[in-house]
């Protein structure tokens, strides 16, 4: 990133850090609204990370890699959804299963496709195109927020808007929310709640696929377990964001900023790294408690 005069790297990095949470969070929101707690996000991201870079390497095309990566992730999400919805299994435990399976599957495949369970490095992969408008980079904050990021970051921004439209402006989103709050009403209207829950799951597969793609295509390599907890943060972000797309945008930013700050802090503060690593979580939980206090005080409470 050729940062302009007034560039604030912390902000700029915040954006690249937050994008995976943001995308996964938006996807998770869909299942959340359909009344399912989707803890499979972590596994979905991992699947997306693995397959997008592998396919990119095989096809030699980033676009194809991303596309096929997303499709594979959606397939994986479909299995998770099918077991949960059609076999009526407990969504939490199938979520755990999906995460386990993602870890096992990627390793096993990696071993049988490339003979290693370690880092997969793909030489000569084009790196993700970056949007540069040098003239505008200089604009304080805005410049860092909006420019000099790779294209998938903009998918992240776009997903917020698209999700907002989908949820509040289309019959689909309208029924999706209905499913979450009263499936019986949906049934009585001659619709199938299961379909909307499945749709939600597939969408989360889509966005998590993208989230994963960012992680690996940025590197041109796959590192086992590279999702390292981002799916869980996404879950946090959904709740912290009050289960709305723009709320999620805000929450991801908060967490991303905390993470970015802690990365910089490591260089300057003379306190043990561990404490600094804990910092983003402390910030987030604090934010969460404060939010709930405000909610509580404003809404009041019956005795």
């Amino acid at each position, binding site marked *: 990133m050729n940062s302009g005069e007034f560039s604030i790297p912390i902000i700029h990095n915040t954006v690249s850090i937050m994008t995976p949470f943001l995308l996964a969070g938006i996807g998770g929101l869909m299942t959340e609204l359909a009344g399912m707690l989707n803890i499979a996000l972590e596994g979905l991201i991992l699947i997306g990370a693995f397959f997008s870079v592998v396919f990119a390497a095989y096809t030699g095309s980033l676009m194809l890699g991303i596309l096929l990566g997303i499709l594979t992730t959606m397939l994986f999400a479909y299995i998770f959804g099918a077991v949960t919805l059609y076999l009526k299994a407990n969504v939490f435990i199938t979520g755990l299963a999906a995460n386990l399976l993602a870890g096992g599957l990627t390793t096993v495949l990696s071993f049988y496709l490339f003979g290693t369970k370690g880092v997969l490095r793909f030489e000569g992969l084009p790196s993700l195109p970056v949007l540069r408008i040098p003239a505008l980079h200089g604009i304080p904050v805005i410049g860092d927020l909006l420019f000099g990021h790779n294209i998938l970051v903009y998918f992240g921004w776009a997903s917020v808007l698209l999700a907002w439209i989908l949820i509040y402006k*289309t019959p689909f*989103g*309208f*029924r999706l929310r209905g499913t979450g709050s009263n499936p019986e*009403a*949906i049934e009585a209207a*001659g*619709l199938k709640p299961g379909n909307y829950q499945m749709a939600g799951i597939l969408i989360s597969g889509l966005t998590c696929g993208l989230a994963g793609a960012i992680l690996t295509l940025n590197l041109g390599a796959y590192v086992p377990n590279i999702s390292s907890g981002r799916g869980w943060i996404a879950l946090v972000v959904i709740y912290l964001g009050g289960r709305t797309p723009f709320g999620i945008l805000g929450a991801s930013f908060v967490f991303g900023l905390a993470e970015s700050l802690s990365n910089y802090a490591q260089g300057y503060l003379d306190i043990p790294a561990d404490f600094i690593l804990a910092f983003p979580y402390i910030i987030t939980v604090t934010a969460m408690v404060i939010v709930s206090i405000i909610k509580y005080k404003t809404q009041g409470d*019956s*005795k």
Partner: protein
Amino acid sequence: MTPYLKMQNITKVYPANNLKANDTVNLEVFKGEIHALVGENGAGKTTLMNILYGLEQPDSGAIYLNGTEVRIGSPMVAHQHGIGMVHQHFKLIQEFTVAENVVLGMEPLRGKLFFDRRQAEQTVAEVIEENNFHLSPAARISELSVGQMQQVEIVKMLYRRADLLILDEPTSVLTEQEIQRLFKTLRYLAGQGKTIILITHKLGEVKSISDRITVMRKGEVAAVRETAEVDEYELSRLMVGKRIMLDFDKEVGFCSEPILSLQQVTAARKHQDRPLLDNISFSASTCEIVGITGVAGNGLSELEDVISGLMPVSSGTILYNDIDVTHMSAMELRKTGFSYVPTDRLKRGSSLASSIRENMIITNHHDYLTRGGLLDGKRIESHVEELIAGYQIDGRAGMPIGTLSGGNIQKVILARELEKVRDLVLFAEPTWGLDVAGSEFIYQKILDVRKRGAAVILISSNLDEILAIADTVIVLYRGRIVMKRPVRDDAVLSRERIGEYMLGLKDDFSAAIPAGAGGFLERAAEEGGEGYSR
């Protein structure tokens, strides 16, 4: 002529409990008629209609529309055949608006893609207009009264252009006025050529509204009659095999110390223009049944919550045996020995997933602690068995109460609340959804409680009920008391006169007729004429 709808030899067994809910049932309904389907609780009415609406599949039997056989595999198919149903328990999405609930599943589109909310509200407004309902398409369901929610359910059907309308016990949750309005609508719709099947327990209603009647008993059709040809007594005999009347010996005891008294109680919630309860004062004395009525949405449920300690009071005091209980929580009130049968049996009154046993000891499980601090299983068991027998509850102590019938659930609640009454019981809508026999059983219990010298507060939107057993009638309108009289005061106590108070046309406590009541005038006039007599 061929009937519009013909259900032939329908048989349905519920696997869950191998219970034959419908046994070779035959039902014929003609176009444009209002057909009443009556029967005791558990007779199989809902089951039959669920089959017609595609929610349940019959084990055998056939369904014909206009003489051609149809298979109705799902509500979707039912819609396609022009069949719509209003369920006993409404299926609405609380946080959505009226319009949104109505169009759900058939949303108007803008640009082939986007949900056209404006269009939706417009169309719905038209439907509401045509059938002169009193609903705002933009209102959230959570803000509506029960009666209005039901209107929404009906609008839903009309929006879908349904020709055959099924209403399952629509009146059991409605007030007198709302019932009258509903019947007006139904007649209007029938006039428009729609066919209507109406399930109800209330024989008076059957007489006043229906053209023909099918009587079910224990899953079979007991009789089919032209309404004109039967009277209520024959109907009740066909249903239950015995005569029922709503008059009781109301021997009043000679005691009357006030037990519970409310003084200028006002309850307001944030961002709400007028208080939900406005300066309420009355007291209930020993051996007295205070009946409190009013149109839903005028403070009945708030009063219930305030008295039971589930809703905070903004000002005023509540004295219980001269102790100030104004700010006591439900928990503290319970400790004082106050009994309460709530309106909402399924969420508040019981824990559906829990056993009858567990439901029966919620208020008093502390009495069953052994020295070891454990719950004394044996004592609980014998106690529960006693109650089950005493209240003729059909079910075993270990059964999830959710698998019981509505009536039996209510019996469990009564057993729990009345088993050791101290001196005050609050009943809220105790007979909703119950058949005549069930209601009678409950009235007996209420009168027993009074006979034992307790004070009874009976919150009910069912006037018959109030008139039948209350000693004092209080009418709430917009959170205020507009009438308070002894029931023996025959000057006012015709149901029509009370109706005028309920609509805010009369007010004993302020000369001026409250603003906003004007709109009701002409409707009230119409309805005044149409009250039926038993």
